Structures are given as structure tokens and as C-alpha cells.
């Protein structure tokens, strides 16, 4: 529905004489004000007030009604939500009411020193006298109004329609409003409040219900569902199904009708830019670049290597030359000769020569077999170094015995190292063999192999997870785990309990008063005991399983294209399925309104759906007739044959049929039922009031300030507007 507020400042205030009443329809949703006798109110706006702070100046200002949200960006609206003067349908906040009246009169063009016109203002049915008093006071005191009249909006609407022949002088007015719904019987043109009936459900509740449902169904788009937007959606798409259950069944079966009835709201969405797969040229170009880079690196490495080789060779030649020179020099002069070069003795030169030769060989990249030979050679050379080992003890001197023991020790260690190496080699061979077997098995039957692996993986991962969970949470884990960590007291598992027991016995078992824990060495064995208890029995088994798990998962990652390793999620619920990442599509940004279209207005007929335990619209009609307690069958028939629907919430398509069916159910068979909708359910109340205010006898219905102060509150309680003039 379009934005129906209008609040241009009217400029013809002064043309109206001071007997022309001003008519105000003070509704919980909209506030309408205008001159009596006209067909349309001059100013209409939403009955809410906001008091935000202006961002630049910091002062708090008042904004009445709904405005263009673009202008509101200059104000800080975080702390000031829209506030209404109403609590249900009764005015209770008169400060806000004053702001609203200010705004209304201001836009009407008021510019005198007081409002000099009588005022007709609407109120709810059986308005509590306090609210009435305060309203009268406000009007008299602050605005200087000469006289005031109160009337019920539904009654005005009924009378207006009666005048236009839509309904008779006896009938029922059904008025679903913003926060409440009323059913008022009319007899001889006057409302009979004894038979009136009110349920606290209205358009506000329908919008709220729709908003909650959509927010729960589409939590990602929750920010989009503002109250105003949802109200627009409701007005555009909601309808009342003639029979809720059969309509719901249509949707449940997923029939084509249901598809047609589902409306779709597409949120603005921009698809992410699609990356084109690189073309052939791109690929070739990139490959060429990589090739060139690789070539360059290789060249650099080559250059480095050759320069190093050259360096080493130079060193070698230098040292050989030195050695040659040394041979020519005499023994005594060696130290002085060598002082220049930096070597101290011949052995040093020789050993560094050997080292340089080795590194040269390595730089030239000779095969490892030579190295192994070298090692073996060193081994065998070492064997020669244990000459004394094999000689029996009694033939050696004590020194030699000591020597022998040392050599024995060295031999056993080197033997041990060799054995270990052998074992490693054997294990490697074994593993190779196993892998080979595995590969063969895989190649001959890949599917089966994959399945087996997957099954094993699942079992193992479950076992591991369960053990972890037991360890962390004790035995209290059900499906809906609340992640909260370990509990206290009785929820500790066996190992932790044991630990606590040991600690407490250690702490309290000592002598009287003195804490001598730790004086003896054996005391600290306690901790060993505790940690042993805690770790040993669980960890080993766990390690094995975990190792195997890791192996299998790595294997699966290699060979299974669809495998995703289950990450360590800790003590939480196992997800039923690992969500696969997929790009967001257009459908994710669509909001579907299917069942909600008729589920939300259904609450007008069944308030139990939202937990309000009162009668729905159709039942209220029956209650109202019953409350009248007339024995006159004829009157009842007349009442039901002229049922008027008025009020903003009766605009749903399908409402009159549903209401008729509902009322037929509770009336005796064959009674005439006619349900009509008012000419303009929203504006009719104001129009009716305006026609009244224009009538000649209107001033008799008002009360002035004098009346109010003389007669007091009690009289005001009994004040009733007479609708037939």
C-alpha cells in the first residue's frame, strides 16, 4: 500500500469560523485531523513520536509521524525508537499525545493564540475515565479549546455506512483495528455497549507474527525485515483462506496450486564476477616465464658450484705445493717456514688436505656408493683399532687390560649402531613390501578398497572422538550438548576422581597440624602415581588409534577425490553432514512467502495461535449476540443480516467469505447472514465523525470547560455521545 500520510501545512485555517468543529480520529495506527463537513481529513500521519539527537548540534528534537528515512540520517536514532501514546487502544502517555496534537494542529495551519474551535475526538469503547479526564484536561488547559466531544470510531463508521444504505439501523459492527478488535451491536441506530465484545488482537499482532516467522526462517536476512517493510508485505500479499486446514494441506502436498500461490521476493543481489579460465595463450605464456626463471636459477646454481670447485681446487693445489716445499725443507726449519702460511705442523696440512679433497668430491657430486665405501672403510679401519679385544685377559698387562676394556666398549657401541641400522633397513624393506601389496590390492579392485578404507576411517574417528569426549565431559553427553567444559563434583570421570582422592589423602593424612609433605622423598612418588593413573591406561591405546587414523586419512586424501578429513571439533555434536562450500546463488536471496500468506491473518480468527486465549472474530459475533440477552429471535436475525466490517485490518481478501462461514456455524440453521465491507474501512470513521460534527445538533453533545470543572469526573464517566441526531 502506498505511503498514505499527508502532512502539508494547510493554509486556510483562518477561513473557518470559530464554530466549525475540528474533527480528530485518534487511532492507534494513524492520526487524522480535518474540518467538520468535509469528506476527507486534511492531515494524516502515523501516530508515533521519535526523539532523536541531531548529530551535528547534539540537541534532542522531536519528530512526529513517519518520514522519509533518507532525511533521518542526520539524526542519531539509536536510542530513540518510535514511541506511541497508546497502550493497547487507550491513551496513557499524554506527553506524547501533546506532541502529536501539536503537530496535528500545526499542520492544520493553526496560528491564533489558542485553538478556538470545538473538537470532536474519537476514543476507544468504554474508555477508562482517567484517560478521558486527562485528554479533556489537555485540550482545555493547553490548547484553550472551548468545547470537546468524545465518540467511538466504530460507531461513526457504522452510522456513516448506514446513511449510505450499506447497513441497516439494526446490525453488528465488526471492527478489527490495530491493536484490538471490537464487535458492537447496534439497535435502532445506537450502539449497545452491553453487548460489546473486545479481543486484544489486531493488525499489529499480525505484522509482528509475520516478522518473527520470516526472521526465523531466513536468519541471514534478518536485517531486511523492518517493521515497515513487513507491514508492506502483509498488506500486499496476505489473504485469508476459506478453510485453513485444506489450504495448508495443498501446500504440504506441494501441488501446482500451492506453487502458484507462493510469492517470491527477490532481494537485490550481485553475482560475483566470474573468473574466466585462463586461455591457451595465458597458460603458454606463464609456462614460458616459469621455464625461464627455472633456467636462470639453474644457471646461478651452476655458476656457484663451479666457482666453489675452482676455489677448492686452488686450495688443494696450494696445499700440495706447500707439502712439496716442506719435503725439501729440513725438519728444524719447518715451524718458521709454516708461520707464514698459518699451519702449525705437517699433520695439520695433511688433515686439511684430506678434508678439502672430500669436500671437492662432494661438490663434484660423486655417487653415495663411494661414501658408503668410505664409511665401511672407516669401519674396517676401526676394527683394526681393536687389536686387543680378541686377546684373552691373562696375557695382557693391567694397562693393556684397561685399554682392552675401552676398545671393547667402543666395539660394542659401534656394533649396536650397526645392528640398529640394519634393523631400520629391514623395517624399510618391510614397509616397502606392504605398500607394494597395498598398491596391488588397490589396483585390482579400487572401489572395494576405497570403501574399506572409508569404513575403517569412520570407525576409528568415532572411537577417537568418543574417547576424547568421555575424557573431557564425563558420561553426561547427549545430543544437545551445551559446550561448557567440565563440571564439578559428581561429573568428574574416574581418573579425575582418583586424582582428587590421592591429593586429599596426601593433604590430610599427615600428622596433626603439621604439614610435612615433601620432607621425605617417597612423598613425591604420589605425583607419579597420579599421572600414571591418569595417562597410562588411556594414552597408549589412544596413540595407536590416532596414529592409524592419521595414516588412513592421509592415504584417503591421496586416493579419494571426494574425501574431506574430519577436523578435530572437540566436545561438540557430530555434524550430520559436513557442509560443502558452494558459491551463493540467486536463490539464496529470495524470500518465499507461501504458507505465511494465510497463516498470519489466521490469528484474527484463532488468537490461540499466538497464545492469546480469547475468542476469534467469528466467535465474537456469537458472544456479542449472547450478551445482549434478548429473547427476540427477530432482532437477532436482523442483527446478523446486517454485519458491517470496518477498520484497517478488514482489508484482507477473503475475509467476508470466511466471516460469513464462521457465523453461519454458530447461528441456527437458515438464519439470514449478510456480511458487507464498509465503503472505505480506513477513512469511514473520520467521515462519519465529520458528518456528525457538521450537524446542527452537534453542539448539544459537547461539553465545555465549565461543564467539566463543575460536574467533575463522575459525570464524565457517564457521558455518552448520542449517535442519532
Amino acid at each position: 500500500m502506498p505511503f498514505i500520510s499527508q502532512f502539508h501545512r494547510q493554509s486556510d485555517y483562518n477561513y473557518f469560523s470559530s464554530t466549525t468543529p475540528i474533527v480528530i480520529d485518534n487511532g492507534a495506527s494513524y492520526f487524522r485531523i480535518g474540518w467538520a463537513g468535509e469528506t476527507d481529513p486534511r492531515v494524516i500521519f502515523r501516530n508515533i513520536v521519535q526523539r532523536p539527537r541531531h548529530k551535528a548540534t547534539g540537541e534532542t528534537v522531536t519528530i512526529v509521524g513517519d518520514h522519509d528515512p533518507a532525511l533521518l540520517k542526520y539524526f542519531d536514532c539509536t536510542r530513540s525508537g518510535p514511541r506511541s501514546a497508546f497502550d493497547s487502544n487507550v491513551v496513557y502517555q499524554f506527553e506524547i499525545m501533546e506532541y502529536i496534537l501539536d503537530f496535528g494542529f500545526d499542520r492544520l495551519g493553526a496560528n491564533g493564540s489558542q485553538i478556538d474551535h470545538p473538537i470532536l475526538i474519537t476514543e476507544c469503547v468504554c474508555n477508562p475515565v482517567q484517560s478521558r479526564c486527562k485528554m479533556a484536561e489537555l485540550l482545555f488547559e493547553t490548547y484553550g479549546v472551548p468545547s470537546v466531544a468524545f465518540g467511538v470510531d466504530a460507531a461513526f463508521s457504522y452510522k456513516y455506512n448506514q446513511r449510505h444504505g450499506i447497513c441497516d439501523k439494526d446490525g453488528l459492527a465488526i471492527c478489527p483495528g490495530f491493536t484490538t478488535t471490537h464487535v458492537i451491536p447496534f439497535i435502532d441506530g445506537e450502539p449497545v455497549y452491553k453487548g460489546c465484545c473486545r479481543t486484544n488482537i489486531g493488525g499489529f499482532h499480525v505484522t509482528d507474527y509475520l516478522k518473527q516467522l520470516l526472521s526465523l526462517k531466513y536468519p541471514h536476512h534478518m536485517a531486511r525485515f523492518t517493521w515497515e517493510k513487513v507491514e508492506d508485505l502483509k498488506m500486499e500479499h496476505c489473504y485469508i483462506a476459506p478453510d485453513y486446514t485444506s489450504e495448508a494441506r495443498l501446500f504440504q502436498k506441494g501441488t501446482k496450486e500451492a506453487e502458484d500461490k507462493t510469492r517470491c521476493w527477490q532481494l537485490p543481489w550481485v553475482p560475483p564476477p566470474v573468473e574466466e579460465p585462463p586461455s591457451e595463450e595465458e597458460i603458454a605464456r606463464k609456462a614460458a616465464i616459469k621455464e625461464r626463471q627455472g633456467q636462470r636459477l639453474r644457471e646461478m646454481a651452476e655458476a656457484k658450484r663451479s666457482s666453489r670447485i675452482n676455489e677448492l681446487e686452488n686450495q688443494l693445489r696450494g696445499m700440495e705445493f706447500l707439502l712439496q716445499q716442506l719435503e725439501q725443507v729440513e725438519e728444524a726449519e719447518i715451524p718458521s717456514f709454516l708461520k707464514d702460511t698459518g699451519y702449525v705442523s705437517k699433520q695439520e696440512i695433511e688433515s686439511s688436505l684430506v678434508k678439502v679433497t672430500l669436500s671437492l668430491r662432494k661438490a663434484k657430486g660423486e655417487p653415495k656408493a663411494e661414501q658408503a665405501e668410505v664409511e665401511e672403510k672407516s669401519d674396517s679401519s676401526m676394527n683394526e683399532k681393536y687389536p686387543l679385544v680378541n686377546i684373552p685377559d691373562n696375557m695382557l698387562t693391567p694397562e693393556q687390560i684397561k685399554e682392552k676394556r675401552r676398545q671393547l666398549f667402543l666395539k660394542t657401541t659401534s656394533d649396536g649402531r650397526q645392528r640398529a641400522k640394519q634393523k631400520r633397513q629391514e623395517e624399510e624393506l618391510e614397509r616397502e613390501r606392504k605398500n607394494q601389496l597395498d598398491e596391488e590390492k588397490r589396483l585390482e579392485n579400487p572401489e572395494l578398497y576405497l570403501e574399506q578404507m572409508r569404513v575403517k576411517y569412520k570407525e576409528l574417528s568415532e572411537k577417537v572422538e568418543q574417547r576424547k569426549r568421555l575424557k573431557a565431559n564425563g558420561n553426561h553427553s547427549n545430543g544437545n550438548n551445551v559446550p561448557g567444559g567440565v563440571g564439578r563434583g559428581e561429573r568428574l570421570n574416574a581418573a579425575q576422581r582418583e586424582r582428587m582422592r590421592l591429593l586429599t589423602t596426601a593433604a590430610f593424612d599427615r600428622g596433626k597440624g603439621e604439614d610435612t609433605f615433601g620432607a621425605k622423598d617417597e612423598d613425591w612418588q604420589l605425583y607419579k602415581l597420579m599421572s600414571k593413573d591418569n595417562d597410562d591406561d588411556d594414552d597408549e591405546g589412544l596413540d595407536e588409534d590416532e596414529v592409524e587414523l592419521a595414516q588412513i586419512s592421509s592415504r584417503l586424501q591421496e586416493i579419494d577425490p571426494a574425501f574431506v578429513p574430519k577436523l578435530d571439533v572437540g566436545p561438540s555434536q557430530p555434524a550430520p553432514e559436513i557442509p560443502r562450500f558452494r558459491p551463493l546463488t540467486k536463490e539464496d536471496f529470495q524470500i518465499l512467502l507461501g504458507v505465511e500468506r494465510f497463516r498470519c491473518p489466521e490469528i484474527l480468527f484463532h488468537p490461540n495461535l499466538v497464545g492469546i486465549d480469547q475468542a476469534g472474530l467469528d466467535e465474537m459475533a456469537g458472544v456479542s449476540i449472547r450478551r445482549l440477552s434478548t429473547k427476540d429471535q427477530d432482532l437477532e436475525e436482523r442483527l446478523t443480516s446486517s454485519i458491517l466490517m470496518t477498520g484497517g485490518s478488514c482489508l484482507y481478501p477473503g475475509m467476508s467469505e470466511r466471516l460469513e462461514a464462521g457465523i453461519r456455524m454458530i447461528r441456527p440453521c437458515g438464519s439470514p447472514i449478510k456480511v458487507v465491507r464498509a465503503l472505505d474501512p480506513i477513512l469511514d470513521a473520520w467521515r462519519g465523525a465529520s458528518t456528525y460534527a457538521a450537524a446542527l445538533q452537534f453542539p448539544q453533545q459537547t461539553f465545555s470547560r465549565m461543564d467539566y470543572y463543575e460536574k467533575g469526573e463522575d459525570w464524565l464517566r457517564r457521558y455518552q455521545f448520542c449517535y442519532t441526531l
Partner: protein
Amino acid sequence: MEPEVIKAELVLPTHLSFKRMQMYEKYPKGQARGRHWKHLKQILQAENFQNYPPDEPNYVNIESPPSMHPCKRICDLTGFEAPYFDPRTNLRYASADVFKLVRSLPNEYVQRYLALRNAAVVLK
């Protein structure tokens, strides 16, 4: 104030000629405003409706009685007819697929669905 705000006349002017007493006089700044307004419940209590004859219609009298029709049971999640009821979460559901959804909801959503029906446990 920005020019477009002034042009749109968004803000209520503080001084209005037709008022006898302006807002800033009535509610001086700094004082707690509005906390003394009685809510509907308090207004109704203060009315003392029991002192007046019960025949006369008053605000409380005209309220509708609870519904006589059997309660309509619809699924909390989908809105279809729901003959089943989950004892753990107290939600109504229509079929086995919906049940799966119900059980996989986090607690916050469960409470919000229940609050729609006014069946949530409110701790005060």
C-alpha cells in the same frame, strides 16, 4: 540544521503560538519526564470497576471470553497441520522431516518459536 531538513520541516518547532503553555515550560529539561505515566494495567486498577454495578459496560467487562472452539494445532515451523508434539523442546511438528529440523535447531531458535505461541519459559 541541514537545509533539506529545514525545508522538509521534519522537526517539531519548540514554540507554537496556539498553545497556552509550551512544552519546555511544562517539562523542564533535566527532570525525569514521563515516568509518572500510569500504564493501562494501573489505570484499570485505579478505576475500581468493582464499585460500580456489573451490568454497566466498562473497559474490563467487554473483554471477550476464552474461545470455545477446539484449539487449532499447527506446526510451529511450517504452518501445516501438526498432530505431533516433541516433549523435549515442546514444539509441534508436522512430519518426520520437520522433526529432523526441530531437533537440529539451536536453543535460541527453539525459544523464539515458543515465544511466538507465548509458550516460552520466561525467567524473571
